[in-house]
């Protein structure tokens, strides 16, 4: 999907649709099968698996405490797939273009820039995690659950340091607030069809079918 406006709107609506009911999650999964490169769009598989394991643990807890853990797991897994698709399709500048288009050169530009930086930070943190795992392995340390906290400390420290450096670079370049860009989007026919389908799925998930069609009198 080339148009970030349709992509993000679709992801937002599909996530809500998948979260609200199991039927919504099934529709969203079908949408994911039809309109995305499916498994090829999943880039950070280890991170995705880790998130899935986290949801699995929560689902087990919900099940043990009498809730519908399976439904929770299915819905969250589908949301993960949608998130993974959005992450893989995102390009540099998407958020700043979208923000400026939506909210203008001041608020929109800044919001878009912050969102873009956050996405970049997510990629950096993932790379840092991989790097620390390799470094620990080279130092002869075993890697496991016990490594998460020490690695996390270094990653957070590094992320804060990088954020400081970015702020300094922006200040040195004279950045105060806002900016001017002329966002340009390319919308294909496939984008429009996928976006429309996402809207339909969202409506179907939130509004009961019988409210649309008079099935029985």
């Amino acid at each position: 999907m080339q148009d970030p406006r349709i992509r993000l709107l679709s992801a937002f609506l599909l996530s809500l649709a998948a979260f609200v009911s199991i039927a919504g999650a099934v529709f969203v999964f079908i949408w994911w099968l039809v309109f995305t490169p499916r498994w090829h769009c999943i880039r950070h598989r280890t991170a995705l698996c880790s998130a899935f394991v986290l949801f699995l643990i929560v689902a087990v807890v919900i099940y043990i405490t009498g809730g519908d853990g399976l439904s929770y797991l299915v819905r969250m897994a589908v949301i993960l797939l949608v998130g993974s698709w959005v992450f893989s399709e995102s390009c540099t500048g998407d958020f700043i273009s979208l923000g400026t288009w939506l909210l203008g050169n001041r608020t929109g530009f800044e919001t878009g820039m912050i969102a873009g930086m956050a996405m970049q930070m997510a990629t950096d943190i993932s790379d840092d995690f991989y790097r620390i795992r390799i470094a620990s392995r080279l130092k002869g340390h075993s890697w496991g659950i016990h490594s998460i906290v020490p690695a996390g400390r270094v990653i957070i420290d590094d992320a804060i340091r990088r954020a400081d450096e970015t702020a300094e670079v922006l200040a040195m370049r004279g950045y105060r607030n806002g900016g001017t860009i002329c966002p340009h989007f390319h919308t294909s026919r496939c984008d429009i069809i996928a976006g429309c389908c996402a809207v339909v799925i969202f409506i179907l998930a939130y509004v009961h079918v019988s409210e649309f069609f008079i099935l029985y009198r």
Partner: protein
Amino acid sequence: MEVAGLKLVLSHVTAGYPRWSLAADCVFLPGIHLVSGDVGSGKSTLALMMAGLRTPESGTVIREGISQVMLSFQFPEFHVTGLTVAEECRSWGLLSDEIIRSAGIDVTGETPALSLSRGELKRLHLACVLARNYDLLLLDEPFSSLDCAEKEKICRKISSRSSGITVIFTHEQSVFPHVDHIWEILEGRLVDCGNMPGAIEHWQHAPALVKKLTLAGRTPHELTPEGIREAACRTQE
């Protein structure tokens, strides 16, 4: 110098990205090896494959008798797993006071490791790496971010390694440690230039001064600064 049983074999190994490839078919025996090549020629990729951190597209890497492997990355921050200098030294199983002294940097154990400059961090990292013995030590651009005096100091430490296989991947042209064997990456292939000093005659990436001395019939017996000086001052071959 040689330790019986240690052998690193690259059997018909290939690696590549689109529009770039690397092939190697060779054996590394104990001693100090120098692998030279242009920037982007695949030195780091080769080091990763030798360390077992990257799977070759074809062929196999066999580490015979090698149990302890260390790959020193070009960027020292890639090795940092501790918040402070002391924690970082401990993660290597070393005492911070000794390492700080050995690295010759003006920091304390409580200094945040990632607040060090690239040069300081490189010195700290190399002090940690060279404080321990490894069967296979792979040094990817060990001289980057270092000044000349520091490069010479590191060269002396590398030269003093008395066992194991040491492979230095570098495009450095000014300062070298004692080297037993020279390799170079030419047109996507790892080429064996041979043992020192004969290797120099086949070494296309040789520094200009070394080439000049060789052409003048005064081939250095050693690549160390002392070896180069000796060749330059030699009056008779």
